């Protein structure tokens, strides 16, 4: 284990911003190297002596906490990081992408995607896959990475994964088809020109269920591995 890793762990658990901790640990290591070089002149185990002179891990952790260092946003406002931010990102991205696609496809507004040139069809397919199958998993992975980095086990992480699954299950770009003649940012099942609430609910629940299950398994496994290694 590298020197001062325990200091890092304790400060992360105390909710201090990871960037500030990283800087502290880097400087402590540089200081230790200088002090070790100086102590070499005195013979014996210079490294051990230098490490003792630096102070115990507890002293170093307390020294930083006493100076009121910046706290991580995910600790200060977990509701914003794990709840609000991903929900806003999903809704805004889906809506903006749908608007941009509608504008781009305006000259061909009377055509169905199957009747458009190949490049447009490829673009529609790419955007559909991105908003429908990638935004949710990417945001879930980001939330998990933030929680792991900050050693969090807050209920907000679970809440965030549920919200990401639900919102990304509903919001996604869709191109016109036989049932839905418009471009849109939400997955609504339609039959005979009318919205099918049950069908929509089943579709959203299915999509959300799959994403939530996969992200929950990943979160539990990675958290368990982190607990073992630290």
């Amino acid at each position, binding site marked *: 284990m590298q020197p001062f890793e325990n200091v890092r762990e304790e400060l992360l658990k105390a909710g201090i911003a990871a960037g500030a901790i990283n800087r502290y640990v880097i400087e402590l290591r540089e*200081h230790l190297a200088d002090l070790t070089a100086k102590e070499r002149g005195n013979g014996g185990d210079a490294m051990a002596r230098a490490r003792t002179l630096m102070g115990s891990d507890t002293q170093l952790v307390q020294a930083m906490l006493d100076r009121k260092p910046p706290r991580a946003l995910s600790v200060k406002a977990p509701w914003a990081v794990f709840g609000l931010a991903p929900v806003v990102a999903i809704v805004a991205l889906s809506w903006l992408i749908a608007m941009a696609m509608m504008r781009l496809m305006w000259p061909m507004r009377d055509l169905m995607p199957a009747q458009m040139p190949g490049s447009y069809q490829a673009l529609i397919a790419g955007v559909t896959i991105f908003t429908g199958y990638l935004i949710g998993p990417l945001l879930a992975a980001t939330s998990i990475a933030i929680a792991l980095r900050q050693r969090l086990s807050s209920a907000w992480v679970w809440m965030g994964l549920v919200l990401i699954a639900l919102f990304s299950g509903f919001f996604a770009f869709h191109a016109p088809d036989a049932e839905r003649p418009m471009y849109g940012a939400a997955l609504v099942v339609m039959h005979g020109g009318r919205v099918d609430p049950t069908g929509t609910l089943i579709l959203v629940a299915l999509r959300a269920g799959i994403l939530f299950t996969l992200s929950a398994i990943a979160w539990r496994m990675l958290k368990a591995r982190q607990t073992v290694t630290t």
Partner: protein
Amino acid sequence: MAREPNPNFMAGVPELMILRLLQEREMYGYEIVQAIRAETGDVVSIGEGVAYTVLHALEREGALKSRRRRVEGRSRIYYALTQAGLKRYQNLAGTWLTLARAIQTVIKQDSFQTFIQTFIMGGHHAAV
């Protein structure tokens, strides 16, 4: 054993020392700790690892700025004083000088009274 930190009444001294040293030139953490020890004849010593928490706090408050520099093959974070830091140093130094003068006066008076009591009043008493 880790170097013992100074007692509670030394609170604020590390900041003062750091700001004073950085007034002359930019320095890195290890250099600052060694310079404080050398310049105060080991009377003031900042814990080897603790100096960085002071430096970071001063930087957050805008009194210092830092940059990474490569010197003799080693990359180090150098700290320099800002205008706000210079102002802060002048205020701190002024406060400390006033305080030190006041304490010195009190201690001198105390020493004088002790001298009077021990050698003059005590001597008079003995004579009686």
